[in-house]
């Protein structure tokens, strides 16, 4: 791996102290996943999304920017002006998007390095694929738009928050778009599902557990699905699933997630309109 | 749902040469003959009074001119050749065309027939309209007008039979597999037209109607749906040509037609299986041999 020698790095071979504390066993934690009254540890119902806070124009230097809070998850996304694609001589009919998804070093329980690791690269790619079909790329041929997403605090569902925020930032930057894009995340473990999982729930959903009976090769279905939707066009612009899911699980979960994206889309619309009104009023006062 | 996973041990040898003596193959640097009485042609060089080969290939001798023709090469254009090419770039007053030769070929705005007749004057507006006529990615058939000293070709489409190609399939083979003949445009009796470009690009398309409709050849009919029977014939021809090319057999109207007839015992998708490809090539070779012996 290339080393960035302008930075002072921490020793690589450190381990998080949490491993040495006596935590509850995994089984125990799973049982508390959803308690008998159908409530999750933070008091939400299974199909309940966390409260969202949105703010635009947080980075003054960027063309468009958005800040999103979903529960404790905090993400800043900034979008910059289109510029010529570097190191490219061919004519490209469609403009390009460049996405960078990054966890701040202090955002997770384990410290993140400054360099993008493979998980972050993968998430950047998913983000790029999802946003590509929302942007009218043919309107800026041979140009690329840079989108940077920085996670300040990770409490699960970071990627969907980043995609939603990127959609707002793009709209706010005046990049032509077909539709508003919103995303939601969905976790599934052994018959119970949760919308908008926290990082704790994400961890539980990403472990495959064996069935209790004798056959060793039977595993319980589990997984995480990220979906981004263009609401008015009723199009899925991004779909990413991970884990061990039956086709029927995916089918059943789809309605729940798409409903969540629709709810978020309404919120986003309201905010964008509010922002425009605010701008108009400010201009009026100046005059 | 057809899925076939084969083992490498089941690989078949595509060669169809039976009792056939292969000619001597020269390798680069090999002495061909003493220089004295011979002339140096393509693929050869002269050193210490000897004529040596500069490519791997077979010797060709025309009177005193000795040249070595490489087994596998890009297309070396000659004036009058029919080629099929793809537009790669639109420039000032010219198009760049990929014709499988070493350098991109050039099609000048002045060497195409613009819609509205041959005697039409070319004006500045035409220059702005160039992308309307031909844009990047479009396929054309053309004739080689001139070969420049660096080997690049300039093309022309000043005949109604040349121009932009509409719906159909492009197959790419080695240029050396195309047999030179009087005409490279064939309306096969199976109801399909085929253009055997000298550059190894073969265009298979539904029959081209009488040439009157073909005004300058800048129209593509995107609405027309090719009927199923024609589509099957096109697919079969495509797979037959690939089968012949895999067995390194010369491609011309008769060989393609024979292969087509021999292939009828297979379904079109079965022609993707190596065994049936070799079988078709074998039977075609057999029929050609019979024809030659008669």
């Amino acid at each position: 791996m290339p080393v960035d020698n302008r930075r002072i790095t921490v020793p690589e071979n450190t381990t998080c102290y949490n491993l040495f504390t006596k935590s509850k066993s995994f089984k125990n934690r799973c049982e508390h996943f959803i308690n008998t009254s159908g409530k999750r540890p933070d008091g939400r119902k299974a199909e309940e999304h966390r409260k969202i806070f949105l703010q635009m124009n947080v980075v003054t230097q960027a063309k468009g920017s958005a800040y999103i809070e979903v529960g404790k998850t905090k993400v800043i996304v900034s979008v910059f002006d289109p510029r010529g694609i570097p190191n490219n001589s061919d004519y490209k009919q469609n403009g390009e998007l460049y996405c960078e998804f990054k966890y701040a070093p202090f955002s997770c329980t384990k410290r993140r390095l400054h360099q993008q690791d493979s998980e972050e690269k993968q998430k950047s790619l998913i983000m790029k694929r999802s946003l590509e079909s929302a942007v009218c790329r043919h309107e800026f041929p041979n140009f690329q738009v840079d989108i940077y997403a920085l996670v300040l605090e990770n409490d699960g569902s970071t990627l969907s928050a980043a995609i939603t925020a990127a959609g707002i930032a793009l709209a706010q930057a005046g990049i032509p778009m077909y539709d508003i894009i919103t995303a939601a995340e969905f976790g599934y473990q052994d018959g119970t599902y949760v919308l908008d999982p926290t990082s704790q729930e994400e961890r539980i959903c990403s472990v495959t557990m064996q069935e209790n009976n004798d056959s060793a090769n039977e595993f319980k279905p589990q997984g995480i699905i990220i979906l981004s939707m263009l609401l008015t066009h009723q199009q899925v612009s991004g779909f990413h699933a991970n884990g061990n899911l039956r086709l029927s699980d995916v089918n059943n979960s789809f309605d729940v997630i798409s409903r969540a994206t629709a709810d978020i889309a309404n919120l986003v619309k309201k905010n964008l309109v509010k922002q425009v009104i605010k701008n108009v009023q400010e201009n009026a006062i100046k005059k | 749902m057809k899925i076939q996973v084969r083992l490498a041990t089941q690989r078949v040898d595509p060669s169809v040469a039976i009792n056939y003596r292969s000619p001597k193959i020269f390798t680069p640097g090999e002495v061909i003959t003493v220089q004295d009485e011979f002339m140096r042609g393509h693929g050869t060089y002269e050193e210490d009074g000897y004529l040596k080969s500069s490519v791997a290939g077979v010797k060709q001798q025309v009177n005193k001119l000795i040249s070595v023709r490489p087994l596998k090469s890009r297309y070396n254009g000659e004036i009058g050749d029919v080629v099929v090419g793809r537009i790669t770039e639109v420039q000032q007053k010219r198009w760049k065309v990929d014709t499988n030769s070493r350098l991109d070929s050039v099609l000048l705005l002045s060497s195409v027939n613009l819609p509205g007749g041959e005697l039409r004057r070319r004006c500045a507006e035409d220059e702005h309209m160039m992308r309307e006529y031909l844009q990047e990615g479009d396929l054309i058939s053309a004739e080689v007008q001139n070969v420049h000293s660096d080997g690049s070709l300039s093309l022309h489409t000043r005949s109604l039979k040349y121009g932009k190609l509409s719906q159909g399939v492009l197959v790419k083979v080695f240029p050396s597999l195309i047999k030179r003949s009087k005409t490279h445009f064939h309306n096969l009796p199976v109801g399909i037209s085929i253009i055997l470009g000298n550059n190894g690009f073969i265009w298979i398309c539904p029959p081209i109607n009488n040439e009157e409709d073909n005004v300058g050849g800048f129209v593509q009919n995107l609405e027309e749906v090719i009927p199923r029977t024609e589509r099957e014939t096109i697919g079969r021809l495509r797979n037959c040509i690939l089968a012949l090319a895999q067995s390194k057999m010369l491609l011309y109207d008769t060989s393609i037609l024979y292969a087509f007839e021999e292939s009828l015992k297979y379904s079109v998708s079965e022609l993707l299986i190596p065994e049936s490809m070799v079988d078709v090539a074998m039977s075609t070779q057999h029929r050609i041999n019979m024809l030659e012996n008669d």
Partner: protein
Amino acid sequence: MSLCEAEKTFILHGVEENFRIDGREREDYRPMEVEIGIISHAFGSARLRLANTDVLVAVKIEVDTPYPEKPSQGKLDFFVDCSANATPDFEGRGGEDLATGISNSLSDAYRSSKAFDLKKLCIMKGQKCWKLLVDILLLECGGNLYDAVSLAVKAALWNTRVPGVKSVGIDGKNVELNVSERLNDCVPLDVSGAPVMVTVCKIGEYCVVDPSAAEEKCSSAALVVAVSQGNITTVLQGSAGSLHPTTLMDSLGLGVEVANQLNIALMETLQSAPPHFDVGFLK
């Protein structure tokens, strides 16, 4: 490679007719060829050729210490090398994005313990484990990379033999490992759950599998579905483009169905392979 509108239209109508340009139906694969055990220095290897796509996979095994978070699991890493031999576009850093895309999708697909049980690679909890390094070399690119790569990886893992461990002991701080040198002691890996990926391309209103390079150019969206024993382990988007929800579900269904068939076909072929044969790269 670029295509003109008329060629695209021809392909599109062909897909609608369920008769593609090479005569295949929408759910047909081109014949592919697989060969195992061709790299002598690797613990397992495979080469897969699907039309013009050619993939070579070799598995190396090393002894390593497990991650502190997962003390009882071995390690499995994928490395994709887009050789400039395949196309000049890969020269320099050209193939890097494609390479990380493929290797990430593979590690996602193999993450679930249903797909591949890493616990079997543990030698001694918290101390020693096997690390499988799967190197994937793209020798030629002719479309449908994900499918070809996943099949080649599965074949290579099927071919892999893990050295047998005679005894493990702890001497003070050091772990003493005694590994058998005899070939007979080697253990094959269990790859029954190793995922198979299927790229489902949407062309016009229909979905096709195993797209050729030209068909990939015509597709409006592509979905890669990794399937392990009938269950979906990973879904990702192969290219930019959006889908209607019903199309999405249909193509997932199609992907699962095709992947199951593909898995059966591959396993049958691998089981019929004679133990020692060498064909090599002659083609």
